[in-house]
């Protein structure tokens, strides 16, 4: 058994580190480290830098402008980005839609949409969940009816991340009511500027705006925007979801956050001694660190079996559960470690125009907000309950 990287992989790791050193804007990474949403233009700038290096879509095949990265290279890249506080690549286009187009799309669709993802012409969002269809996604009701040269779409999507930035959306829509609900779903690409589309913000409990509702009324969509075959959308969606759930370990991000928490706790005094030496606190911290170490190995074990040709199955569900819970545990302990300072909620403290009183430690400005915001991690991308259903079915045959 060998969980070490090869020499070539180590060189790549160093190359990524050097690149991040030179190219990552410290203002942006400070925001990322403190859980502040970065602006659309900050995201686009970062995408541009990565694209110039050829790393915006590293896992893509070379013929489409990628680097043919294997799972280990992808892992190394994401971990180094996470450790340094680089913004996440907005996944909806390059990470989610692209694999679907490559596998199920037409030549024209690949030729048209893939380059636009790389050069930043399109910002994609994902239209899956509906008010009545969350965990039970297959019950979705948004309809697309063929009429002459287009589909007419009516319905509503919800929890749509960054729809406020997007000019394109890929949607699951109902094209048939025959047979099982899964058998009447199609996969459609839509222009967000089409007449009949309305986006309304959903503000989350911490006061931030990441997700939206989208309303469709008689929206015309050209027939060529159908991906693959009509009524086969469920297959494509499942394929996409496996992609969404890999890379959810976030080991490097969690390591970075643990390190920061440890530093915070050693600079904080509780009853005259450093908080980090308080037995109850130390026990909480140690348990999270041990869980994280275990997850790191679990994740590498999964990667190594994928590298050796085994398909990722329910393992991605194990990692999604653990990754989300460990991150939530760290956010929880960070909030606790701040004591009374955790009351503060001033996310603007990281903006240029902030003129309120200074906050020390600065992390306190967003720590509680982040703790509440990150409760979403065990809910989104298939709730952890749904992941347990998948494990029960696929791994335990229950």
């Amino acid at each position, binding site marked *: 058994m060998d969980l070490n990287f090869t020499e070539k992989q180590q060189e790549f790791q160093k190359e990524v580190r050097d690149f991040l050193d030179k190219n990552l804007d410290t203002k942006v990474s400070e925001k990322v480290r403190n859980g502040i949403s970065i602006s659309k233009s900050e995201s686009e700038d970062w995408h541009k830098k990565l694209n110039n290096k050829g790393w915006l879509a590293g896992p893509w095949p070379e013929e489409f402008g990628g680097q043919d990265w294997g799972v280990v290279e992808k892992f190394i890249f994401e971990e180094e980005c996470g450790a340094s506080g680089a913004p996440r690549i907005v996944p909806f286009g390059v990470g989610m839609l692209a694999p679907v187009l490559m596998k199920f799309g037409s030549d024209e669709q690949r030729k048209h949409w893939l380059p636009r993802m790389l050069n930043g012409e399109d910002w994609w969002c994902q239209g899956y969940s509906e008010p009545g269809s*969350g965990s039970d996604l297959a019950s979705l009701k948004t309809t697309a009816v063929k009429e002459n040269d287009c589909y007419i779409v009516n319905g509503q999507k919800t929890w749509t991340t960054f729809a406020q930035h997007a000019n394109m959306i890929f949607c699951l829509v109902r094209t048939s009511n025959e047979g099982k609900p899964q058998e009447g779903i199609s996969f459609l690409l839509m222009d967000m500027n089409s007449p009949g589309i309305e986006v309304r913000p959903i*503000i989350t*409990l911490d006061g931030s705006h990441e997700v939206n509702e989208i309303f469709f009324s008689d929206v015309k969509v050209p027939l060529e925007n159908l991906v693959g075959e009509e009524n086969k959308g469920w297959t494509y969606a499942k394929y996409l979801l496996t992609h969404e759930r890999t890379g959810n370990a976030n080991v490097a991000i969690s390591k970075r956050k643990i390190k920061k928490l440890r530093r915070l706790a050693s600079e904080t005094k509780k009853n005259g001694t450093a908080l980090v030496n308080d037995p109850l606190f130390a026990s909480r911290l140690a348990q999270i660190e041990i869980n994280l170490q275990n997850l790191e190995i679990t994740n590498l074990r999964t990667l190594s079996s994928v590298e050796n040709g085994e398909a990722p199955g329910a393992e991605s569900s194990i990692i999604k559960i653990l990754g989300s819970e460990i991150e939530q545990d760290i956010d929880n302990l960070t909030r606790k470690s701040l004591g*009374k300072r955790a009351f503060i*909620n001033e996310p603007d403290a990281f903006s240029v125009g902030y003129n309120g009183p200074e906050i020390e430690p600065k992390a306190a400005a967003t720590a509680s907000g982040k703790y*509440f915001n990150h409760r979403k991690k065990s809910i989104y991308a298939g709730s952890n309950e749904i992941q347990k259903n998948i494990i029960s079915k696929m791994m335990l045959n229950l």
Partner: protein
Amino acid sequence: MDLKPSPERQILFDTLTKYFENEYKIADRNTAAHSELGYSKEAWERMRDLGILESLIVPELNGFGGTPLDISAVFEALGRGLVVEPFLETGLVSTKILSKGNESQKKLVADLLENIALPTFCHSENDTDYRKSYVKTKLVPDKEGNFLVTGEKVMIKNASGASHLIITCRSSGDYADEKGITIACIPSNRSGVDIKSFSSIDGGRVSDIRLENVAVLKTEIIGNDGKGFEIISEAIDFGILAICSEALGIMEKIKELTLDYLKTRKQFGVPIGKFQALQHRMAQLLVEIEQARSAVVNATINFFDSNERSSVISAAKFSIGKIGMLVAEESIQLHGGMGMTWEYDLGHYAKRLVLIDHEFGDEDFHLQKYIELQ
């Protein structure tokens, strides 16, 4: 044995609960809670007219309550209503301290009832050291027999709108000694007082207060010089009892919201409450909330037992901290995305419930204190 509340207190609780349900809308509450003042003056006045303040104050000071049983019943109702107005720091803890003062300080309680004064309690000096005796703010005598106060208070609730500040000071001894603590009550506009305020995640405002050679008259000292610890200790214990009861009210409300959601939200063709995995989690919440209620009852009935009070108060605050977080997190998870939204009430209850653990000592602090006391 009868551990039920008396009929009068049950009526008080029911009346307040009904009032908040009908008249205190969470959306309006949120607007006020995140405003410059941090609460609604108008709602405060309406609730004052209702007699909520009087129910926290003993008859000798023109109230009609003030016992642990009254306080627990009222704060449970305030919790259910998610009331952000300053009943805890001003209505309860400040009046308990002022009741030990001289005639003009007692008159401040009357002024509060008349709505012409709004004192608040300024005690904490360290974010993570929750010891009641942690006081560094220096009080030194001047030549005229009055005093000068210099120091810093941190994360004080509702200081920005207060008319008077009740400040704990050190006149002798080391920073965590129980002896040598002196309490002063001064108008908040006194020269040398600098208040910096922040938005609080659970609503309201929190402030850091810098005191620089602030003049204190000898008539502005509450109780005896150096003997303030016992006064604040009891007042803070009242505060802990109140905040635990508030948490209980929040948890009961969260339980109702979540149960309602489990019964009405349908996925896979059935209400999600039909899934056994979720039934067991909801049942566990009920079990835990019953334990939380017992912790609060235990603290309430033993409050005046001097051998027991510290222990039952710490046991209650520990239980509330631990169970509160579980209830907040589980209820959000059982709601899915809905629990994450600003528009829906649950998240606001969950925020307050979690942050209650950061007030008057968290679960770890009180667990350690409980261990020391055995």
